[in-house]
């Protein structure tokens, strides 16, 4: 069997981390239906099967005592280094021991639909392979499953050569390996010696349909790893982006892809729940849902990199899966477009570093967020301007959203940040209502028959006037978060991005200066809307700042300099959480976060556009349909 070691470039001098030290100590593996988080010390501490939003079988990340985990690591590791096999989502953790070096490869095997039609493969599987590249080492494996978010221990049966079988609910888990296992009542352990050239494999699978598939280990697993690497590399090779920061952009789109639910096209915000926005704090939310507020930037990122199929799937999902609530839109939806679960607390879990409560479900489902109409319409407009077509049903849905905006744009709402303190007249919500009207009128110019054009035009003008008059605070010399307010919000940086006002206008320059002052989190980062230290700096807002600079709000050098600085906050695998602790740079909030990675991609695209001397915001011009990258991807 050929070696699968992809040797890391860097020396193995990083110290071994303490257990569950930081959120950024995790990496993600997945198959676009579910995902798992793997720690630097080789422990899978988060896994929900069969779908992202299913109950967790491993959730030690939220409670080391109560949540389950699956750890494979040397007993005497002295250093560790991690990396993804280049251009893939196959994770490799290399442990340096006093006596040798071992490499742990973690993945959810993936393959093309054509291959799946010709080969029997488990419905859901994690493969872990540990091999010794030199010397020797003692390896310890602990497998501690805990069903339903740690509420139930799992009855484990040893079926000899077939493997370990665990029946939970309506499904069955199987653990198979070529290592010798010892069973306790509710856990499995193994301790073995590994020498240079030796390989041990572990396959953990889940199915809800009997009989389960029990594929062999050895070459079959080896081929599965090679096939997965080839799959991801082929997928990555389709990225048409050749601009600066390509490595960060490619890692971001690989992370974004892992947060896509392929059967429906939904993209979840993050694969986790309740990773805290402040250690010890209570801002802990379930992000395993699809938020529409991310729509416009997400489509821009996918189209900008040439991922036409993924963009089309997401458009289909947004316009068809939301059918049941149209013309109203909910803030968030489940993977299949259903209403999110009612929020409840899992009181038996102590939370990440005792940051409680741990919540599942999300109360934001009941909020009114007027910005999402503009997000969806803007996403659709970008899609059309890039050459996509919307059928009659999709056009009807968009017009329905437009009419809803005409009727409701002046209402107070919860706004993009979903505070639970009530509704206000948010400037950002009005900006996106303006965007909704503007894009529908753009689509009319693009050939749409729009009988409502007059009312859309009037509404656009009214909103514009209101923002210019009531959202502008002349004593502060700044736009404000809410109409007539005196507080700022990082969303104001998006005025230029949506085409409402150029970023080099005197008002925007003045707003930017004030915003940098009011929302400065230190360390070059920004809070999203306040400075009360109840949460970390919001990573996406800093990437919005890069966009603002790249769109003319600053120099190209300033945009690149900030982008370079922000790259220092990604973890060693190139992943970002929702927030960043401005004091120590640690990741905060759910992880990895789609919105942040979309921000990375979008900011890099804007920097690249400016470097090329391209027109500002080419992604929203009609001429974008001739954008070579997208045309290439479509071909």
């Amino acid at each position, binding site marked *: 069997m050929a070696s699968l070691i992809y040797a890391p470039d860097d020396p193995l001098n990083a110290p071994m981390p303490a257990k569950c030290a930081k959120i950024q100590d995790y990496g993600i593996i997945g198959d676009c*239906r579910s995902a798992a988080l793997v720690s630097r010390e080789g422990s899978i501490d988060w896994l929900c099967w069969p779908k992202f939003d299913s109950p967790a079988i491993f959730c030690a990340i939220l409670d080391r005592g109560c949540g389950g985990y699956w750890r494979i690591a040397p007993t005497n590791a002295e250093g560790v280094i991690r990396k993804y096999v280049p251009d893939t989502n196959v994770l490799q953790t290399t442990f340096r021991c006093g006596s040798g070096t071992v490499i742990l490869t973690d993945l959810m095997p993936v393959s093309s639909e054509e291959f799946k039609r010709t080969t029997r493969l488990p419905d859901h599987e994690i493969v872990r392979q540990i091999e010794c590249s030199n010397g020797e080492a003692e390896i310890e494996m602990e497998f501690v499953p805990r069903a339903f978010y740690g509420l139930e221990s799992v009855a484990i049966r040893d079926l000899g050569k077939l493997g370990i079988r665990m029946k939970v609910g309506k499904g069955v888990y199987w653990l198979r390996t070529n290592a010798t296992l010892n069973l306790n009542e509710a856990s499995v352990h193994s301790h073995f010696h590994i020498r240079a050239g030796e390989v041990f494999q572990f396959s953990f699978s889940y199915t809800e349909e009997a009989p389960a598939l029990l594929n062999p280990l050895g070459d079959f697993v080896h081929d599965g790893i090679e096939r997965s690497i080839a799959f991801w590399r082929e997928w990555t090779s389709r990225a048409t982006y050749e601009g600066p920061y390509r490595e960060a952009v490619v890692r971001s789109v690989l992370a974004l892809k892992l947060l896509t639910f*392929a*059967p429906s096209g939904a993209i979840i915000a993050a694969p986790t729940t309740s990773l805290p926005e402040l250690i010890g704090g209570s801002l802990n939310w379930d992000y395993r849902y699809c938020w529409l507020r991310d729509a416009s930037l997400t489509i821009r990122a996918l189209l900008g990199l040439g991922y036409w199929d993924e963009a089309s*799937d997401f458009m289909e999902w947004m316009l068809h899966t939301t059918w049941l609530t149209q013309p109203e839109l909910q803030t968030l939806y489940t993977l*299949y477009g259903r209403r999110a679960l009612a929020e409840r607390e899992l009181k038996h879990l102590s939370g990440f570093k005792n940051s409680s409560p741990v919540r599942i479900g999300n109360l934001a489902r009941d909020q009114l967020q007027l910005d999402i109409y503009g997000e969806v319409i803007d996403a659709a407009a970008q899609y059309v301007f890039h050459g996509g077509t919307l059928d009659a049903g999709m056009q009807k849905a968009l017009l329905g959203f437009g009419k809803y905006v005409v009727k409701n744009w002046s209402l107070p709402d919860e706004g993009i940040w979903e505070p639970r303190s009530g509704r206000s007249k948010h400037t950002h919500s009005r900006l996106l209502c303006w965007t909704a009207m503007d894009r529908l009128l753009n689509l009319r110019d693009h050939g749409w028959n729009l009988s409502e054009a007059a009312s859309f035009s009037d509404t656009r003008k009214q909103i514009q006037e209101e923002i210019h008059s009531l959202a502008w605070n002349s004593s502060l010399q700044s736009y404000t978060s809410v109409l007539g307010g005196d507080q700022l919000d990082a969303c104001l940086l998006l005025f230029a991005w949506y085409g409402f006002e150029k970023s080099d206008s005197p008002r925007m320059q003045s707003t930017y200066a004030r915003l940098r002052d009011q929302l400065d989190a230190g360390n070059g980062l920004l809070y999203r809307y306040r400075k009360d230290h109840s949460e970390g700096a919001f990573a996406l807002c800093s990437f919005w700042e890069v966009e603002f600079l790249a769109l003319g709000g600053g120099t190209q050098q300033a945009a690149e300099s900030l982008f370079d600085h922000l790259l220092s906050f990604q973890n060693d695998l190139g992943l970002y959480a929702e927030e960043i602790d401005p004091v120590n740079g640690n990741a905060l909030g759910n992880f990895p976060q789609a919105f942040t990675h979309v921000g990375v991609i979008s900011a890099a695209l804007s920097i690249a556009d400016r470097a090329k001397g391209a027109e500002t915001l080419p992604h929203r011009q009609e001429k974008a349909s001739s954008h070579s990258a997208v045309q290439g991807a479509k071909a």
Partner: protein
Amino acid sequence: MNWQGWLLWGFVATLALTTMLSGSQALGFTRINIPYFLGTAFTPDRRRAKLYGFFLHMANGWLFAVVYAFIFESWGHANWWLGGLLGAAQAAFVLIVGMPLMPSFHPHMATEQHGPTASRDLEPPGFMALNYGVQTPVSIFIAHILFGIILGAFYHVHL
């Protein structure tokens, strides 16, 4: 076998079923659009798919009405509640067996195991078609019971 009854009331019952399901979709009870669901097996064009699917669904309805007619003949009588019971049984079969099987039959429908490849396909209905909305089973049950009631009540009525 009452061929005239089958032809006429099979057609009427299928129309009623189709209308009921379309109405459920229009009123926001379910996302399932049966003509589109069936028609996309033959064409990706949404408008044509709905047209093809409509005719296919009508043919299906007539075909199932034959089965109902045979059952009524074997029982020796037909009435509205026997028809309703058959409709409920058919709905249960469609929801519990037929819907989860659809990705196997439909050439352009993703399975629950689809991925990571972007689908460009229809999302799978899942058990009892719950992926299309939690009220989908209710809509399908009521529509099929209505189908059975019409057939049962009028099968022996001669115009």
